[in-house]
Structures are given as C-alpha cells and as structure tokens.
C-alpha cells in the first residue's frame, strides 16, 4: 500500500516536473530549425520562478472566479495527468477515473478557463473564450469517440487495462486504431493550442485563442496558467504514448528494474513526440479560425468511423 502510494506520487511529481521541460524542448527545437538560437532549455522553469516573484495585477472588474480559476485549471489538469499511465500501469489510484473521466476533467479545466476569460469583461477575453468554446464543441466529442474506439478494441475504458491489452500483441494492426490515432493527434494539437489551430508563441491580436483568454493574467496567476498548459501538453503526449506505443510500461507490482526501464522508455517517448511536434509546427502554417472546424470535424468523423467499424465487427 505504502509502495503503491509512493509509485503514484512518483507519477504525479514526474508529470509536474517534466512538463515545463517538454515545453522548453519543443521551443528550443523549433528555434534551432528556424536558425535561431532560442531560449535555454530550462527557460520555462525560470519563467515560473520569475512570475512567482512578481505581484499579481487583477483588473477592477474581476471577481473571485478570475482569481480561483488558475488553481482550478491547474488542479483539474494535474489530476487528469496523474491518471494517465506514464512509466507504469495499474498505479494505486488509477481506477478512480477512466478515459471518459480524464476527458471530463479537462472539460472542467476548460470550463474554469473560459469563465475566467469572460470575467474581466474585455473584448479580447471574449474573443478567446468564444473560439475556445467552438473548438471544444468539436474536440471534446471527437475525444469521446476516440475513447469508444480504443475502449472497444481493448474491452475497457480504463487506461491501464487498455495499455495492458495493447501490449499483448494480439491486437495487431487495425483500421479503427489507425483512425483513432490520427483523430487523437488532431485533437491533441487543437487542445494544446498548437499550430495549425492556434499559435502558442503569438500575441498577434486577431489570431489569438488561448493567449487571448489568459491575457489579463499576471504574476503567480499567470505562472499557474502556464504550468497547467505545459502539464496538458505532457498529458496528451503521455496519452498518445500509452495508447499507441505502450512499450516499456511497467506492469503492476513489477520490480525496480521494470520501473527504471519504464522511466527510460517514457523519456525516449517524450523526446520523440516533442521532436515530431517541433518538426510538424515549423513545417505548417496556421489556419484561419473558420477553417479549424473542418480540421476538427475530420477528427470527429474519424472517431465516429472507428467506433462504427468496431460496432460492425470487433476485429476491424
């Protein structure tokens, strides 16, 4: 029991500590490919410390929702990230929520974030919220359909059980899983405000989505919002890794060697995913806001098709 709690604690600490590193890694890589030197790898940690040291400026018209939202967003994202297997499956609290619950926890984070965007009563907060709601209205159902697809293949909505099934090699290559993989990548790009849906580096006024929503934040509040965004990116990478490349995941009650192997494999997966994200982002342009629904509509359709295939035949 104590050991189980320690392992769960390791997972929670791991996602929290590695998240800014992944963000910094992607930034550094993108800068390199654009022939810039770019910020140091550890810059997100320094930003965090610097923001904490500053005073928080809160608009006159803001209510308690604005001040509470960063903590709620962070908590919901972190709890969701704690439920996604990173280096080991079957952790002690992993049964307290399945993939549907993880999706809903991210929905809770978005609920708080969008409300905070409206709280100050500025036009930029509104524009970000409005677009975020539109994207979510397509990305969230797509996520649910992806959940159905992978869950029908594995016979469970629980991530640990899905990862265990995927590891057994009886699954094989399936059309439905390929559809789910593409859909999940699209959803992950949209949910993390990456190119081509949104640009994490922009403050160009009319193209902002996520940045417009959090425009009024400063100091410790902004630090929490940024940290939550990093954790969310890590969560989606972990989710992709756990569902589609579960190699190296330590089974429940494994030895110390298996856990070490799991940690090493997780590091490799993070680096690989970060590199792919960086390459993808520098090689593609951001799309207009009203083309995004088509892009996300593809994810929804693919998720629906994957589920439909599995309803028709469990072996597709």
């Amino acid at each position: 029991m104590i050991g189980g709690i320690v392992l769960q604690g390791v997972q929670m600490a791991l996602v929290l500590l590695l998240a800014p590193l992944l963000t910094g890694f992607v930034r550094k890589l993108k800068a390199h490919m654009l022939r810039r030197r770019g910020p140091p790898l550890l810059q997100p940690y320094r930003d965090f410390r610097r923001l904490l040291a500053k005073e928080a400026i809160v608009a006159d018209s803001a209510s308690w929702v604005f001040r509470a939202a960063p903590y709620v967003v962070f908590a919901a994202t972190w709890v969701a990230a704690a439920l996604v297997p990173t280096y080991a499956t079957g952790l002690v609290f992993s049964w307290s929520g399945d993939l549907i619950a993880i999706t809903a926890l991210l929905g809770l984070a978005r609920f708080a974030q969008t409300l905070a965007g409206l709280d100050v009563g500025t036009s930029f907060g509104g524009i970000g919220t409005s677009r975020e709601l539109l994207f979510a209205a397509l990305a969230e159902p797509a996520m649910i359909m992806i959940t159905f697809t992978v869950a029908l293949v594995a016979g469970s909505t629980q991530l640990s059980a899905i990862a265990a099934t995927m590891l057994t090699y009886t699954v094989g290559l399936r059309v439905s899983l390929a559809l789910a993989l593409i859909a999940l990548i699209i959803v992950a790009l949209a949910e993390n405000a990456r190119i081509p849906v949104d640009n994490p580096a922009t403050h160009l006024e009319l193209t902002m989505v996520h940045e417009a929503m959090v425009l009024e934040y400063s100091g410790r509040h902004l630090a929490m919002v940024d940290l939550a965004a990093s954790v969310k990116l890590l969560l989606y990478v972990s989710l992709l890794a756990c569902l589609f490349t579960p190699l190296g995941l330590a089974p429940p009650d494994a030895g110390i060697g298996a856990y070490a192997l799991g940690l090493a494999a997780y590091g490799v997966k993070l680096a690989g995913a970060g590199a792919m994200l960086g390459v993808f982002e520098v090689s593609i342009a951001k799309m207009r806001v009203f083309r995004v629904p088509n892009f996300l509509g593809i994810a929804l359709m693919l998720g629906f098709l994957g589920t439909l295939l599995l309803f028709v035949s469990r072996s597709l």
Partner: protein
Amino acid sequence: MSALAVLAVGIVVLLAIAAGGLVTRRGAVIYGACLAVTAAMAVTAAMALALPAASMVLPIGLPGLGAHLRLDALAAWFALIVNGGAAAASLYALGAGAREPEPGRVLPFYAALLAGMNLVVLADDAYIFLFAWEVMSLASWALVMSRHRAAENARAGYVYLVMAGFGTLALLLGFALLASGGGLAFDAMRAAHLAGWPAGLGLGLVLLGAGSKAGLVPLHVWLPLADPVAPPHVAALMSGVVTKVAVYGFIRIVFDLLGPPEWWWSLPVLIIGGMTAAVGVLHALMERDLQRLLAYSTIENIGIIFLTLGLALAFRANAMPAAAALALTAGLFHAGNHMLAKSVLFFGAGAVLGATGERNIERLGGLIHRMPVSSACFLLASVAIAALPPLNGFASEWLTFQAIFVSPALPQWGLKLLVPATGTLLALAAALVAACFVRAFGILYLGRPRSTVAETAAETDRFSLAAMIGLGALCIACGLFPGVVIDALAPVTQLLVGGAMPVQWQSAWLTIIPTAGATGSYNGLMIGLFLALVTIGTALTIHAVAGRRTRRARPWDCGYPNLGPATQYTAASLSQPIRRVFSSIVLRSSEVVDMPPPGTLRAASVRKTIHDPAWEALFAPLAAAMSGVAGWLNQFQYLTIRRYLLMVFGLLVILLIIVGMVP
C-alpha cells in the same frame, strides 16, 4: 400506516391546501403548508424505495372500478423526485412568492399541481392516471396564465393548452388500446399485454402523449413558450418536475404495461432522443432570454433521458438484463440530477428577474458582485448540468457512456449502426452544454454590468437562497457518492428489466463499476477529494512561496484601457462561431449585415434569424391546413336556401343508396 397511505393522505392534504388557496391570499401559509407536506412525502417516498410494492383500492372514481393506487419502486423514485422538487420550490416560493403581483391566481393551482403530479405517480388504473394527468395539465396551464395580461403569455397559454390536449388524447387512445385485453386497471393490462402491431401503435401513442408533455422534439414547442411566463417557482417545477412525471408515464406504460419489448421499439426512441438532445442544446446556445435558455436545456436533458431509455429497451428486448439495468439506471439517475440542477438554475434565474426585472441576458452582466451567494449556486448547478466531475451530472453521463460502450453486443444491424450515431450526438450535446452554460453564466454574472439595473441589483431573500443551497448540496452529495443512488435504484431496475447493476456500496473506496467484471470504473469521491486538495493545497503553497501581493488596476486588454462595457462580448457574439458552424444547418440561422458605404449617415446593422424546424415543418403547415379547411367550410354558412335544400336532397339520396346496398 403504510407508505402508500401516507402519500395518499398527502395528496388529500394538498387538495385541501389548494382549496385553502381559494380563501386566503397569504402565500406564506400556503407555501409553508406545501413545504411541510411535500417534505414529509419525499421522506416517505425515499423510505418506500426499498419496500415491496403495496396497492390499495379506494371506493371513488369510476363505478365498479374504484380508484386503484399502487406504490412500487418506480413510483417511489419518481415520487421522491416530484416531492423533492416540490419541497424546494415551496421553500423558494416562501420568499419569491411574496413578489407575486396577484397571488390569488397562483396559490390554489400551485397546490393542485402538486397533488396532480403525485396522483399520476401513484395511479394504478387508466382512469385515475388520465384524471390526474389532466389535473396536472390544467393546473399548470392556469399557472402559465396567471400573468395573462401580456399578449405573449396568452399565446404561450394557448399553445400549451393545445399541446396538453393533444397529449392527453394520444394517451387516451393508447390506454384504450391497452384496455382492450382486460380492463382499465393496470393489473389487467399487465396480465393481457399487447403484441405485434397493436403494441407498436401503443408505443407510438405513448411517445406522442408522454413525449409532448416531456418536451421531445418536434413536440417541444410549448416548453420554451410556457416556462418563461410562469412565476419562477412554477417554472422550476414545470421544467424540473412536470417533465419528469411525463418520463414516468412513458416508463410506466412502455416498460411495465406494454409487455415484453421488440427490439425495434428502441429505434424511434433512440432517434427522437438523440435529435431532441442535439436540437435542444443548439437552441439553448442561441437564446438570449434566460428562462427560455433554461427551458431549451431541459429539452436537451429530456433527450438524453429518452436516449438511455431507448438503450434499455434494446438491451431488454435482447435479454441482456445487466446492460438494460445499466442504461435504465443512467436514465433514472439523470432524471433526478436534472431536477436538482435545473431547479437551482431556475431559482437563480428567478432571483435575477426579481432583482433586475430583466430576462434578456444581453442587458445584464457583472451580477456576481451584487449577488454573490446566488451566483455561486448558479455556477455549481451549471457545472452539474454541464456533466463535469466531480458533480452528479457527470456520474449519470458516465453511466450513459458505459451503456453505449456495452452496446456492440446487440445483434441487430439497425442498432449497430444507430447506437454509434446517437453516441456521437450525445458527445456533441455534452460539449455544447458546457459551452451553453459558460455563455449563460459568463454573460449573466461575469464581466461588467451592461445596464443600470444590473449595476444596482441586490442579493435575493434568504428563503430563495436556502432552497438553492439545499439543492446544490444534494448535487455535490450525489456527485461524490453516486454509488448510493445507484444502489437505491436497484429495486427499480429489478422491477422493470429484471436485472440490477452490481452493488456499489461494497466496492472498495466506493468506486462505481458499470457491470460485473468490467474494468472501467469511476470514483466521484476520490476525484472530488483530489481536486479539492490539489486546488487548495496549490493555492496555499503558492501563497506561502510567492506571497499574496495583489494590485487592483484597470483591465489591460492588450493596451486599450477605458473601453466601456459595450465593448464586451455579448451572448450573441460569444456563440456566433458555434452558430455559424452548427446552427446554419440545423436551425437554418442566417445573418444579414447591412454596412452603409462611407459618406452615408445610415446606421449599420446586423440582423440574425433562427428558424425552429419543428415549428416550420410541422406546426405552421398544420395550422395553415386547419385554417384553410376552416375557411373552406366557412362558405357553407352563407349559402342560399335553394342550395341548402339541394344538399339535403343529395345527402338523402346518398343515404338511401347506402341503405339499399347493405343487405
């Protein structure tokens, strides 16, 4: 005294209170009495959930038939919903009812409505059922008409009356079909259940009858008209409770009286449920009248409930009791959750209406500063109804998704294709509901005030707040301990589909599991505790490390300070992208932008139009046909005497021919 006798006496007392409402104009007396009676009845119903079914025959009603009453687990669950919602509404009305301009038009009908709803739930023969159904319909019509001087209210009352009459007619025909085998008592109908096409016809009639009262698309048009014009506590009852009584009527007839289901019964229920969910939430997203927005959201939730009922029918027809129990539990749980959350939302909307006299959210804003407690309750109920963890709405939605997840085992091809489609509609609706309530709460309570009434609003009275806080606490409790509710529903599913979900109370850490042996699980308590601990812990840690230095300043807004409140996003602009993407197809919404060329002094304008497909495709042609036929018939009123004589002669000839042809 048995639980059934307590509830029967409660109905009699409610009728007596209704009579008292004719005498006194003092709301406090009537509402206080209703609160006491319904609270006692709610407790009785909760205790009766686990008891075996009891029935009694009273020597009133039709001669030779008597009045059959029965209290089984299903009736007990809905009696709990009815009386729980009624008790909260009565508590709220102790404060809000005092603002009523003409209490004499509300008081007698309010108590009569409560009595009628309770009697529907307890009725065990078709005569009492229909009688109580009509009492419920007419009492709520009278309540809708209590502020009848506005033309809009009179129109709402007219549409409501027509739809109620239509629904009762459909139910009457349905019961006539059911009674053909034996008699009007439900026991006789259960014994001589229908089969083949009469059963299908019965299902169709019940869908029309109960569905029109519940607000199923395309019979939903009365709900968004009637709810906003009723007094706030009545609107909460009509949306949260009356629609649930209609759901009860559907479940009672289809699952209990109609006999063993065929698999294809589930098809219309699933299609209509999915459509209702999607159309309801899209309408809610476009609406700027707060009460109408909530009414459309009710339609959406009714759609979700019918979707689960359709799944339960499909599972039951295929002899899968565990899956049927899962789907039915999800639907029944959701019915209770919706009553809790929607009542709080209507109470909050009523408080805003009382404080500002304004129903249009575009003219409000910033109310969270003026109404801190009621806004917090509204926020809690929004989270609950948007199906977000750790509250109760998510628990029932999670069960619904789990029910869809086990449905590939259904053998029929029609269902294999339809269930994933309805699952997508459900997922879409779930995401849109969150957007809808971000919009409602954000425009109404957050931001800066858009009018002087919003600037000067004051918090509502203590009774209203008590009702909101009480139901809000129940939302949290049902969200953290969903297993308790699921276990309480086990007798109901045992009764209706012959199976029950695994006992949740015994599972480790109170985790809920959908079916025996399934590895998917959800623990509301653990997620809720984690969320609370991490939120508070992080806030404390950050404050300890970084201090709490905070400076108040003007909004930054990318360097444009001092812009007025009119530059904020409005409700219409917030949902504009969603309107463009979704509603242009479903609701045929369109925008006409009139931008005068430079140099002209005409004002620019944007005009948006939204069409209700149900209204235009179904009701408008129906009304046009009716008035066309009436206009055509009208000419027979002004004929000359010769033509009348000619027609009489012609009719006589035709009758003689017919008589001659019949041997």
